[in-house]
């Protein structure tokens, strides 16, 4: 519990007096997560929602963001489309954290041959570009939300491991670490609470947000290009954007484009809450 308490205190300190853009970014991310969690409860009939009579309509009380050229409600599909990346994106973050944090902690704290081996492993994964690695995983295991999440998680782990390892290595002989050991703080508590949680918690939070933002880009790109992402009629912001391609500029194109831009921008801005600059 001590490790969790120390981590929570470090994150709270990083978030003190946040800039207004950061607050807006967090609100956007919360809205996206809520949309993904609550939209299935609305009972929108995916696949049975084609209505030629109301095709390509503008905003109205019945269709807040209008309809696409098949008469499908853009607002509902936008809300349901967020499910394509919120769940798998969270899984990708969990996998990146589960792999990256322990590897980084070992590399930073152990030193010697163990650190060398771990750093070689991290460097080997990091030498293959993220998207290339994810497509390689899709080649072997097929394309699907789980494969993408695992791929993005593995590809995101080296950045986390490197950041955690560098920070812990710098703090390994710091006075507060020696004092904690002298006061009888156990090694797991010292490593997880004081070194990983307090000293690198904000960095980890920022990198996990970047992993999530990267997943939003990845998922929407794969669905936009087609063949490896979410197939029609299931909604995804990427396939919504391309679905009304060539039919002029309408809300059915602008809404998913704006949603992708705002969500990716929100992860970048929310990540800045955890940088040194805002912590004074």
């Amino acid at each position, binding site marked *: 519990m001590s490790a969790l308490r120390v981590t929570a205190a470090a994150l709270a300190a990083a978030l003190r007096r946040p800039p207004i853009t950061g607050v807006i970014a967090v609100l956007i991310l919360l809205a996206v997560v809520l949309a993904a969690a609550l939209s299935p409860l609305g009972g929108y009939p995916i696949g049975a929602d084609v209505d030629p009579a109301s095709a390509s309509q503008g905003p109205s009380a019945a269709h807040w963001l209008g309809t696409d050229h098949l008469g499908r409600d853009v607002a509902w599909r936008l809300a349901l489309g967020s499910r394509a990346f919120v769940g798998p994106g969270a899984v990708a973050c969990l996998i990146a954290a589960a792999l990256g944090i322990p590897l980084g902690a070992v590399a930073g704290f152990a030193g010697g041959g163990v650190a060398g081996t771990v750093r070689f492993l991290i460097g080997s994964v990091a030498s293959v*570009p993220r998207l290339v690695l994810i497509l390689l995983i899709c080649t072997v295991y097929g394309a699907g939300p789980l494969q993408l999440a695992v791929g993005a998680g593995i590809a995101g782990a080296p950045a986390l491991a490197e950041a955690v390892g560098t920070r812990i290595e710098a703090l390994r002989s710091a006075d507060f670490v020696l004092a904690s050991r002298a006061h009888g703080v156990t090694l797991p508590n010292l490593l997880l609470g004081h070194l990983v949680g307090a000293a690198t918690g904000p960095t980890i939070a920022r990198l996990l947000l970047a992993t999530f933002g990267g997943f939003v880009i990845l998922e929407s790109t794969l669905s936009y290009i087609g*063949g490896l992402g979410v197939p029609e009629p299931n909604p995804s912001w990427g396939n919504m*954007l391309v679905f009304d391609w060539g039919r002029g500029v309408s809300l059915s194109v602008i809404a998913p484009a704006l949603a992708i831009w705002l969500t990716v921008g929100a992860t970048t801005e929310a990540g800045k809450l955890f940088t040194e600059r805002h912590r004074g």
Partner: protein
Amino acid sequence: MNFALARAVLVRCLAMLSTLAGATALSLLLLVLAPGDPIDLIPGGEALRPQLEAQWGLDRAPAQRYWHYARRVAVLDLGSSVSYRPGQPVFGLLAGPATRTAARVLAALACAVVWGTALAWWTAGRRSFLRTAALAVSIAPVFLLAHGFVMAANEGAFAAMQSGWLERPSWFALPDEPSPLRTTLSIVLLAVGSSALHETHAQAEEALLRIRSSVYVDAARARGAPVWPHIARNLIAPLAATTAERAAFLTGGVVIVEKVLLLNGAGAMLWEAARLRDYDLALGIALLAALLVGTVRLAADATRALADPRLRGRA
């Protein structure tokens, strides 16, 4: 080139080769860990079973399989395509497209660093709307920027043609035609989108602020000497570090740019390999991508060592 620099480059070369060997091992591990028989995963794989068993060494232990693959890679044999161009050697398929793709990545990398630095030179230490504008454009994913640009160009040209202002423009190339506009656009989008410009700008700005407030710049200013040669020389090392850091990112991004803008290249080929589950082709492209990233990092490290003598001993 002095001894320390040569030693630093040699150590980095060896490190790059060992990293490539590690990346190959991890990639092959993916195939070993695949449930069941990897041949079952390939559409129509059963018909090719004897050939694939020999090609992938499926009857051998994983370590022997790795050694078998490494020996083949050493003589530039990356295997044969299974489903993209069945039977054709991967190296032959990749030679031309990989060169074009590498040129796109390097051009985009140069643009990102030069534009980011130029922008940073203007914005460093002052409040500028350019910083916000660059951030707003740059955070958009590459495919979204491409979509917006192509849509605006299409709609504008279509409206102009309908109203009789314009004949069919020469840059309206069909997907299989070479198009200088699409190639230029791919480089610009890669250099700007998915935060590429934002990241290089932020790093260049941070370095510029640090250098401008340093003692040697103050001393040059006090002597009445021009300060920009000091700033430019000291900027080389951080910019080389930024280049090394962004290399992997842009090498991944080129896959998307080539697919969205219908360009022929190794990136678009990787996408098809993933879709058709052509493992040897995908692995060959992954290896070449790692080689490109490693080479850029090596060149960046050598540049840093040349620019900053303090870094030569830290290979």
